[in-house]
């Protein structure tokens, strides 16, 4: 099994080194690639200095385009699994082995790391939790499947999904929308409980002001994804 971890990074100089070191130490058997999305800080220099494996995008593509670059890389290089993993220190590398085990033993196409199964660790603010609950409900309405953490950025998938994502991946706020697309195509999606940390550096890409736009945009995108042929 060849496993790849994709770390999208936009201005993550405060946490990128820690994230990669955590991966190297706690996730043996996983290759990784940092996708530098035209950071304006020292993210790229740090990757060079530490000899990290990285992709350097020539133009800023946003989170969707950066992650897709990683899936494309994994697909071209014959990886069996690819895992999205945030570069801001929220995710814990020790869960990757369990996710890979679930993917293989349950014959799943995608495994999502969920904060809300065992409800441990950082649970996000109540406003965000309400938003996530709403997405869970909408996904259930559209696909009759329950995904407790549809916005989770910690997701492992097999080659079939990698191929799908290489062809088509949403440009921004990709997680909930792509889950609907995958479920609609009858792929098997499972969740594994994980504990996430509160981010130490950087800010979430979604603040309260953008939240309203985010909810409407993602809702519509999910509905369109459900009825897309």
């Amino acid at each position, binding site marked *: 099994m060849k496993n790849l971890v994709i770390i999208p990074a936009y201005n993550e100089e405060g946490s990128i080194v820690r994230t990669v070191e955590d991966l190297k130490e706690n996730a043996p058997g996983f290759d990784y690639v940092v996708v530098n999305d035209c950071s304006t800080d020292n993210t790229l220099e740090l990757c*060079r*200095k530490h000899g990290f494996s990285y*992709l*350097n995008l020539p*133009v800023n593509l946003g989170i969707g*385009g950066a992650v897709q670059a990683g899936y*494309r*890389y994994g697909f071209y290089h014959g990886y069996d699994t690819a895992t999205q993993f945030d570069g801001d220190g929220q995710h814990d590398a020790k869960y990757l082995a369990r996710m890979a085990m679930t993917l293989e033993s349950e014959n799943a196409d995608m495994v999502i790391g969920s904060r809300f199964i065992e409800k441990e660790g950082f649970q996000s603010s109540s406003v965000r939790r309400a938003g996530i609950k709403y997405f869970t409900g909408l996904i259930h309405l559209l696909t009759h499947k329950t995904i407790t953490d549809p916005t989770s950025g910690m997701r492992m998938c097999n080659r079939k999904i990698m191929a799908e994502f290489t062809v088509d991946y949403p440009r921004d706020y990709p997680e909930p929308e792509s889950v609907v697309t995958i479920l609609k195509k009858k792929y098997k999606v499972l969740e594994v409980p994980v504990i996430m940390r509160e981010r130490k550096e950087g800010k979430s890409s979604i603040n309260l002001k953008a939240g309203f736009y985010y909810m409407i945009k993602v809702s519509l995108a999910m509905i369109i994804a459900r009825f897309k042929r």
Partner: protein
Amino acid sequence: MSLRLQIIVIVCIAFLILYILKSVSKKKMDFKFGLGWLLISVIIMVFAIWPKLLAKMSMLLGIADPVNMLFFFAILLLIMVVFSLSKALTKEQDMTKKLAQELAILRKDSWEYSNSKKNVNNNGALDTTIEQEEK
């Protein structure tokens, strides 16, 4: 429509047609866009030469004032143009995105390949050179 206005419009449209043809021949505009603009110019030209045609058409469509019909179709046309531009822009964005991803992967692969071949130890040397050339 006064004769003076008619002449002004006809002359303007004639210049516009010449300008479109020049842009197309100099490859500053794709022929498929040029064709659309030429068609629009010719239609305006026809109305400038035979203004009565305009009045007849608006009567046929039940629009009281010919000018209102003109405005209606002009706005409709502009909406269509803007809509098609949004679609064209999205297509361009998708192509740029794919190219950027392919380029990033190719750079990494070529860097690793040249490193494995020459076994040089200057980390990121090739990458830095490429970026300096860009600037």
